[in-house]
């Protein structure tokens, strides 16, 4: 299907954040790269028109679904058992944030991860296919919890 010239531009622009999002959610960097690559594969093969502004949130939605599928996949352990966890270059404080995020419920991980990558509540609602009101309350509840875990209260 024909894609306008700006389509790939938008994807490439979103690339660093997509990779960042994947690194935040995937078990290691190799998987993150794989999932982002698969996201691009799907986005380039997408058989529908997207308005320019929706390319980025849509790509995040695809990536988020792939991440969910990845964790549900029974074969993942076969593939990645031998992979060594990538050593984290993050500061201790940021590692704490990542760890705290990882310990939260999936919905909290979703909304907060997307918030990290500066999505608006409307965009998060689109990505997760939930009403904006639900996203607002999840965001409120989840960031309170995260704030507590991080001692920001």
């Amino acid at each position: 299907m024909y894609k306008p010239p700006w389509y790939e531009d938008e994807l490439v622009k979103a690339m660093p954040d997509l990779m960042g999002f994947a690194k935040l959610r995937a078990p290691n960097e190799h998987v993150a790269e794989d999932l982002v690559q698969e996201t691009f594969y799907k986005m380039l093969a997408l058989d529908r028109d997207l308005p320019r502004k929706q390319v980025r949130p849509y790509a995040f939605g695809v990536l988020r679904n792939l991440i969910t599928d990845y964790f549900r996949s029974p074969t993942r352990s076969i593939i990645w058992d031998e992979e060594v966890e990538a050593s984290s270059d993050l500061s201790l404080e940021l590692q704490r944030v990542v760890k705290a995020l990882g310990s939260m419920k999936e919905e909290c991980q979703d909304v907060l991860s997307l918030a990290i990558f500066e999505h608006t509540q409307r965009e998060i609602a689109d990505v997760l296919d939930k009403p904006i009101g639900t996203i607002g309350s999840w965001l409120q509840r989840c960031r309170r919890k995260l704030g507590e875990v991080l001692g920001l209260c």
Partner: protein
Amino acid sequence: MLNPTDAQLEQYFWGERLSPEMTQICERRVFSDPELLHEYHQVSRLRVRFKELREELSAFEEEKRHRWFLRSLREEPIPRIVVIDVEDAINSLLRGQRVTRMLRAEIDRRLGRAPRKHEVADMDSRDRRVMSSQSASMPPPNFELSQEFLLNDLEPPPKRPPMSKRERIQARYPEVIDYLRRYHRRLWERWVDEGGYSPVLKTLETGRKHAPLMAALELINLAARSNVRRK
């Protein structure tokens, strides 16, 4: 005075765009309520950490960006010359083994079908010259020589008609060419260090879903290595 809803307050906390009037209303409301003010500060601190985290996670090393780029190309993503190198690398690795149908299909799917021997004979004669010069005059695995060879390889020979097939490939895939040139030496060294062993082919045969993608990447790397290995 109009009271902002929870959702609007949340938007205000996170710095989302609100109308100027609503921003003012939220501001007044937050600064008049100690509990909301506390939440506001909490979100501010979280946002600082989120911003740092975003910057850290989204930072792309050049090498990784190129590697990722390579993996993201699909239909006919790799110049045919490189595909032939992949073929060579696979054949040398699988010497004595049979290439399974799944392996072949996956390679073809990711890299485009490699020309078989008889098709190579039909290739553009200029490409063939370049390929045979690669095979015949390949220097030993020495960084400078490899780089020089590759740099020479990148520059079109004089008197070539404009936009030959090779130039078109270079124009279309500058990142691929750049990647192969810049990381050639490292790939070679790794290949030597690892004793020529690669678990890739096994992964490709036994893996599911994501594994073939990883393997495709490694096959591209093998192509680069094979450039150096051939003499």
